[in-house]
């Protein structure tokens, strides 16, 4: 049986599931902001995908093509575990100049909605976020967006197998997307 919640409206609402997922995301935010990137990557499964599509400027009647379908377009990220490993090792090297010295980030993840729970405990969840990046002396960038995750219960916690990050931006107002969400 698949229990489908109605998300924010709360029908079939499972308080304890909601709270454990929420705490998971709070812990994740601290990992990112405390620059524990390897521990952060360990929140993902081996088969993970970290996906960030483009977001096009289209008319309201054409909103169906605002976010191009996965597999058809040129996303900002469509990284598997190996590519993410490249990114993390790169940052750890001390010569990844985009993040050297590293940014000061603050991720606020909220508005959690659990969209679906599958029989095997797989959870489909979405969150909204605001993230502020401060880099070097005075460079700042403000990101907002939402994330759609597929999470699996593993060893008493959760692992993400699929993350979609959608930014609330068309032209990105940051010199590089060298931080994670």
């Amino acid at each position, binding site marked *: 049986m698949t229990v489908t919640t109605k998300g924010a409206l709360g029908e079939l609402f499972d308080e304890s599931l909601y709270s454990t997922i929420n705490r998971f995301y709070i812990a994740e935010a601290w990992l990112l902001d405390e620059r524990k990137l390897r521990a952060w990557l360990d929140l993902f499964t081996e088969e993970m995908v970290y996906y960030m599509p483009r977001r096009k400027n289209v008319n309201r009647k054409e909103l169906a093509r605002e976010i191009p379908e996965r597999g058809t377009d*040129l996303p900002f990220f469509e990284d598997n575990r190996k590519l993410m490993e490249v990114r993390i090792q790169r940052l750890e090297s001390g010569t990844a100049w985009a993040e050297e010295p590293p940014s000061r980030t603050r991720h606020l993840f909220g508005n959690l909605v659990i969209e679906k729970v599958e029989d095997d405990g797989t959870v489909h969840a979405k969150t909204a976020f605001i993230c502020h990046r401060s880099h070097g002396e005075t460079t700042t960038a403000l990101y907002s967006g939402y994330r759609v995750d597929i999470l699996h219960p593993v060893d008493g916690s959760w692992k993400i197998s699929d993350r979609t990050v959608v930014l609330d931006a068309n032209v990105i107002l940051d010199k590089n997307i060298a931080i994670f969400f």
Partner: protein
Amino acid sequence: MKTKKYDVLNTETGRLDPTIYSDEEIYKEEMEKIFGRAWLLIGHESLIEKPGDFFHTYMGEQPVILSRDKTGAINAMLNICRHRGARVVRTDDGSCKSFVCPYHAWTYGLDGKLEWVPGEEELYDGTIDRAEMGLKKARVATYAGLIFATWDHDAPSLEDYLGDARWYLDLEFNRSAKGTKAFGPHKWVIPINWKTAVDNCSDWYHVPYSHASAANALTRIMGAPRMTSDVLWKKKGRAAFVNGHQVCFFRLPDDSFDGNPYGMDSTEENHAEAIERLGELRGDGVMLGTHSLFPNTVLGFRIVIPRGPNETEFWHFSHTNAADTPEKQREVALEHAAQNGAGGHFESDDIDNWNQVSQSGKYAGAREIGQYINMGIGNTTTDDVFPGQLSDRFVSEQNHRFFYSRWQEFMNADSWDDIPLDPMKANFEGTASMDG
């Protein structure tokens, strides 16, 4: 040449005046003398495949609609309404029958002709000359699917403008009769002067250090070829320069990064076609590396759009060989994006360097000490086979010097009459042409 206002590069010492990166007046003059005259890359035919398709782009700072009209012809038009200047198109792309200005609904055809004006009789008493009031159009030309436009009706043909640089560009854009396909673009705003991203296209000197973190991680984890100085500085390829365009090319098989038996091609079949279209040497013996087209096309299919002396919008398209399977095309496109897109692990590490090079022009001390692009002075040669001005080794700053000399030629010219073009001498073996 009446004026010789600019003298920013000492070609004997390689000293460059950094004022060119930060000065407001110079920037304004560039918009007119460079971006108002040159052929500018504005898109790709695969972005507007069908009649009615449009794609919003820029020529320098200016917003431009790129459209395919009912006859299949390609149009580039200033996206500024002839009535009061509102932007007619406000989406990234789409498909339509006509362009209706959101302000007062003046309506333009896909070819820019003014087709309808509300109240033409009732309010204007029939005084509007619709034939005269179409959207401002640019001259358009294509090369192997790439779409270029210029505002200057005195500009030479695109073929002459590209000149022998096309001998090299064909290596990437003209391998297949199917042409190339464009994916994207990523769009992001970076705090640099546009020229720093362009001159960087010939800068292999920075790669072993600037990009060490990405290259080393890719080697360790993905088995990617090493990009260290002992590898790069021994490459048999050269830097070449034609008409303002910069090319770095490799020789195959010696310079091969990955040992692919088909060089730049993914299959034997594609490779055979490339040899037929480009000849044996180009199809099999040379690989295009980083390159840029004057003024603002960089490294493959990327455009730097100036937005101020120290602000530039970067567009990253990935382009792939349309003869490849859709899966292969996407794999290639994603790889380009992972390396050089907005989150690219190579590209990301360039930005602060370019930012600081650009900013240096603001400081008296930096203007006093100048910048130096003096590597390989005196080492430029020419060759019967490889067109253009050639560096005598792969890593060199000759193209930086030629780029700023070209910049100066445009900035000191009163018109296209004052801007020299290299004569075309290259041997274009094979069947590939301007038209693909």
